[in-house]
Every structure is written in C-alpha cells, then in structure tokens.
C-alpha cells in the first residue's frame, strides 16, 4: 500500500487543447506537461474554467476534431494518444483507460439496465460469452461494494441512489482492468458521507489493481484525503506541482496560497476569509504573455513576474511557475515579504 513505482505510465508533453471560436483557436489547456506513474493518484485542482476537465477529456479523446485542436504528446505505451483516430481510440477507451464522469445520472443510459451497461464494454473488448459476461458483471458490482448485485444488475439507473450510481460508474470504468483511470469530479454531486465511502472505495480498488488515477477536482479537501501528487491549474496552465504533503504544508505560488487561505477552517471562525481579487480572465481575453496570475495580485510590482514564466524546481518534485512567489505577500499584511 502506498507504494508508488517510478515507472511512467502516461507522459503528457506540451499538451495544448484549443477550442474554435469564430475561426480562431483559443487554447483552454496551454502547454501542460505531466506524468502519471503506476499506482499513483495524481490530483488536478483548479477552479471552474481553468481547463482541468478539458485536460481530462483530451486524454481520453472525447473532443470533436473540427472544433477542437489537440496538439502535443500524450504518450501511453509508445503511442501518442493525441494523434489516434477514433477507431484506434475505441480500442483503448474502456480497456486501457477508464473514465468516471461527474454526473452519473446523465452518463448512464436511462433506458438500459445496469447490467447491460456494464457488459457493453466487455462485449467490445473481451471474448467472453454471455454467461461469462454476466458473471463478470456481478463480480464487478460486488467489487465496488454493491451487496445485492444480481438485483441491481436488473435495475435501471433512476432506481438507484446517487452513491449507487457512482459505484456503477466506477464498475464500468473498472470493467477492462484499466491501467489508467481518469476521474472527473467523481464525488462532487454526492453527500459528504457518501463521498467518503466512494473515496475509500477508489483507494482500495487502486491498491488492488495498481492502476494510475488522474483525479480532477475543485475540492482541496478531497485532494488532501486521497491524492499522492497534486497539480494546481490556473487559466490553462499548471502553476504548481508537488507531492500532496508538500503542497499543503509548503505552498509556494500566490494562487495556491490564496486558495488554501480561502477555505473556511476551524481557527477562522468569525474571521474574514481571504479572497482573491478580480476574476479568472475569459478564454478569449487571456493574456498570452507574462504571468497569467499578475492581474489578480495588482499590489505586487510588475518586475517580480517573469516575462515568460516557466516552471522552476524549488524542492524535490515541487515545481512552481513564475518567480513572483518569492515576493508575494497577502495584501493586508503589508511589508511582510515572503510572509
């Protein structure tokens, strides 16, 4: 348990995913490089519009090639996923790469029984016959903690509770014993008690099948509960990447620090929460040069930002974009540089 091998499962290099708006392509994910290792949970955190879901859907190739351009390298098993055709991708999706969606009710087909939906991937990817498939479906349902599997297999999605549906989603993602699981906000629609159960389930399943999980979330609490490594995204870029304990104990980038400060906490009762000034710039108005976070920290001098901010290594496995973190201080604590 907890052993993360050094073998790289998925390597993303300079990924840029752009959406077409009136004949111009605007990158929503800009120059992202990441690696996922075996038996590791890599969390990608950010607020809405930062490109984290676009990154996830780029990995599994859910983009329409007319309106979206995916450039760069997504290397898995010596194949570049960014260049695969739909037919080639279908061989990987559901078999090598599993995907867990945020809203299980809209991801499941309302007119198909649960058992059939789980078996769909098995029909495509395996040579099992009908009997064997049924047995495998029940096995999968039991694996995700559904006790009366044979009954649930015959039910329709609307008959299940939110937590059960999410378990079914996980069962579908697991059906091909994937090496990589991409989970896009898997617990956002759930209550805290159910969220805790689903996170525990994901963790224990991972210990079992040793796959690498990319967890997309906006909830720093979830990250702290389950992730091994964290990448923080802002406006399409990764602005900080670190092992989980390092990130929460020793955050460097102004954005990460502000985010952590804006969580209501025990000791902050009756106090004001830290806020981040301004708004995330829209895709079309995004500055393409300089530090993208500079407009949110107007009290810092222009000169502290890099012209072309790069990721700098500040500790083992700890990367921070731009140099402005060295000069950052929270606005109301004036003068305390680095404070």
């Amino acid at each position, binding site marked *: 348990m907890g052993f993360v091998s050094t073998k790289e499962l998925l390597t993303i290099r300079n990924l840029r995913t752009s959406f077409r708006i009136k004949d111009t392509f605007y990158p929503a994910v800009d120059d992202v490089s990441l690696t996922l290792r075996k038996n590791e949970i890599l969390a990608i955190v950010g607020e809405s519009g930062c490109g984290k879901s676009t990154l996830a859907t780029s990995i599994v190739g859910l983009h329409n090639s007319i309106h979206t351009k995916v450039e760069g390298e997504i290397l898995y098993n010596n194949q570049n996923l960014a260049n695969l055709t739909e037919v080639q991708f279908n061989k990987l999706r559901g078999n090598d790469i599993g995907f867990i969606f945020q809203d299980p009710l809209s991801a499941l087909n309302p007119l198909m029984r649960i058992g059939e939906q789980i078996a769909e991937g098995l029909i495509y990817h395996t040579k099992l016959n009908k009997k064997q498939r049924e047995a495998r479906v029940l096995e999968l349902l039991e694996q995700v903690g559904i006790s009366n599997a044979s009954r649930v297999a015959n039910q329709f999605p609307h008959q299940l509770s939110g937590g059960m549906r999410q378990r079914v989603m996980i069962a579908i993602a697991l059906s091909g014993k994937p090496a990589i699981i991409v989970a896009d906000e898997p617990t956002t629609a759930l209550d805290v008690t159910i969220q805790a159960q689903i996170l525990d389930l994901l963790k224990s399943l991972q210990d079992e099948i040793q796959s690498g999980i990319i967890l997309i979330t906006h909830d720093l609490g979830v990250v702290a*509960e389950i992730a091994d490594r964290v990448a923080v995204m802002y406006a399409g870029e990764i602005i900080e990447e670190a092992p989980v304990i390092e990130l929460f104990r020793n955050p460097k980038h102004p954005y990460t620090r502000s985010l952590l400060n804006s969580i209501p906490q025990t000791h902050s009762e009756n106090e004001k929460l830290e*806020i981040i000034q301004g708004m995330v710039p829209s895709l079309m108005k995004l500055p393409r040069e300089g530090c993208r976070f500079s407009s949110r920290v107007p009290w810092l001098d222009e000169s502290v930002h890099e012209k072309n901010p790069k990721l700098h290594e500040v500790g083992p496995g700890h990367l921070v974009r731009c140099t402005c973190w060295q000069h950052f201080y929270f606005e109301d604590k004036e003068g305390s540089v680095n404070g």
Partner: protein
Amino acid sequence: MSFMQVQDLKVHYPIRGGFFNTVVDHVFAVDGVTMEFERGKTYGLVGESGSGKSTTGKAMIGLEKITTGKIIYEGQEVTNQRRNRDSAYNRDIQMIFQDSHSSMNPRKRVLDILAEPIRNFMKLSPQEERKRINELLAIVGMSEDVLLKYPHEFSGGQKQRLGIARAVACNPKMIIADEPVSALDLSVQAQVLNFMKEIQEQYGISYLFISHDLGVVRHMCDHISIMYKGRFVETGKREDIYSNPQHIYTNRLLSAIPNIEPETRLERKIERQKVEAIYQQEQHKYYDEQGKVYPLKAISESHKVAMAGTEKGGL
C-alpha cells in the same frame, strides 16, 4: 428574545395511487421542526440531500404549504398566510436561492430585478427608488453601469451578489439562504461569505443558513441544527455540535468531512470507518421502529439531542 418562532412545523406530501387515485400514503418531508430565531444571529441547518432542510426553508417563507405547525412572527401567527403586499412578514423575511441564475427573470434588467421588491413593499417615488437601487449596488460592491445589463451577462459570484442585493432591498429582519455558495468556486465563495457577514453586522439581519457543507456552516453559524429524515437529530450552539456531538448521526457526518491535512488522513480514515461500523451496528438504538428520529431532549441549556425515552445514549 426571539422575534420569530417555528413550532412543530410539518410538511407532508401526499402520495396518490390505487384505482381512484386516492391518497395512499405521505412523504414526511418535514416532520416536526421547532426553532427560535434571535436578531443578528446565524442559524445553520445541515443535512444530507433529502433530509428536508430546503423544504423547511421554503415552508417558512411560504413557497410550500405547511401541513401542520405554526410560524409566529413578532407575536402574530403567519402560518400559510396569503402572500400580499401589505404583510410585514413577507417584507421582512427574504430568501437567497442556491441557483441565482434561475432565480432571476432572464428578460428583466438588473434595474427591474432589484426594483421589484422595492415596488412591492415600499412606496417610493421613482427618484427615491433609483437612489435606493444605487445604495444596494454600493452595498454589494458593484458599479452603477450594471443596471442596464441582463442576468446572463454576469459571472456566478456576481449573480449571487445581486441575489443578496435583492434580498436586502427592503431591510429584512431575516434572510433564508438556501445553499447560497454551493455552486460557487472557492475564492468566490469566500467573497460571498465575507459579504454576508458584513451586511449582517451592519444591519443586524438574522440568517437561516441551509447548507450541506459543514465547514462553511462552522464558519458562518452561531447555532446549528442537524437534520435527518425531516427531523432534528441534534441542535445546539456551534461549540456544542462540533466539540461535543452526542448523536451518532452527527458523529458520522462530522467524521466524513474531508480535512486539508494530508498527514493525518490515515488516522482519520480509520476513525471514520470505526464510526461507520458503530453507526451500522447501533443504528436501531437511535431511531425508533419506523426508522424515525426520536424527539429532542435537552442535555444542557443550549444543546438538545434526539434520544429514546429513558435511556441516555451517546458515544
């Protein structure tokens, strides 16, 4: 002294069925809720989805019909009162909705959205009305050039702020906030929460803060009630609930909150699974034969817990 009391509030929905489409059963959405509200305090209502917390809020403001029970506002009973423009209750109790976008008419400009409560409840001349709207915008920190914009032109946080501006337009005594920040990003959530606290300090408004996020509730509320299946399982001051939880359901809920301390996550996981195991085992002690929560019993001046007749349960 409390200015508003809710006594044994119940909202039951009929389930129709059978041959003549008769009422065969009821859904007990809210099943006996009693609360008191004081000036300038924030009351938290916490529960999982389906626990009836939103229905309680809606019933109080008059969006759901109350089956039995009473709402008393400044000594007068206002239960199921018809909504009319002279009623002080309808003016003084306002609501902030979770989804600010769908709570605003997309074909109205900000000017008209903010003017609506003013036109309903305050008899102002057009000049005074305009002045009041500008004041409201100043309160929520927006400039006057938003007046001619439509709701879709704003971001989520801005829309939620406009929702708050609309709620405070007639100087209400109490605002029912139904998951006001659940749909917002962390940094925007902080803005809205700070802002709600600010106007509370300034105008002495009370809040009924309905939320499933125990972290936010802890930050905001003086008094917290935990709801399960339409009833309170535990109610008390913030310290009572967080440092001395008595009911097993409260314990389970508290142990499930993610914490941003990755070092201690293993211990918390073990603790959480322990609580969950106890919950599964001893559930029957805390609920009666029909799975309902027992009536509340006071264990200290402010702290009440649902428990069975004589037995003094607890962990």
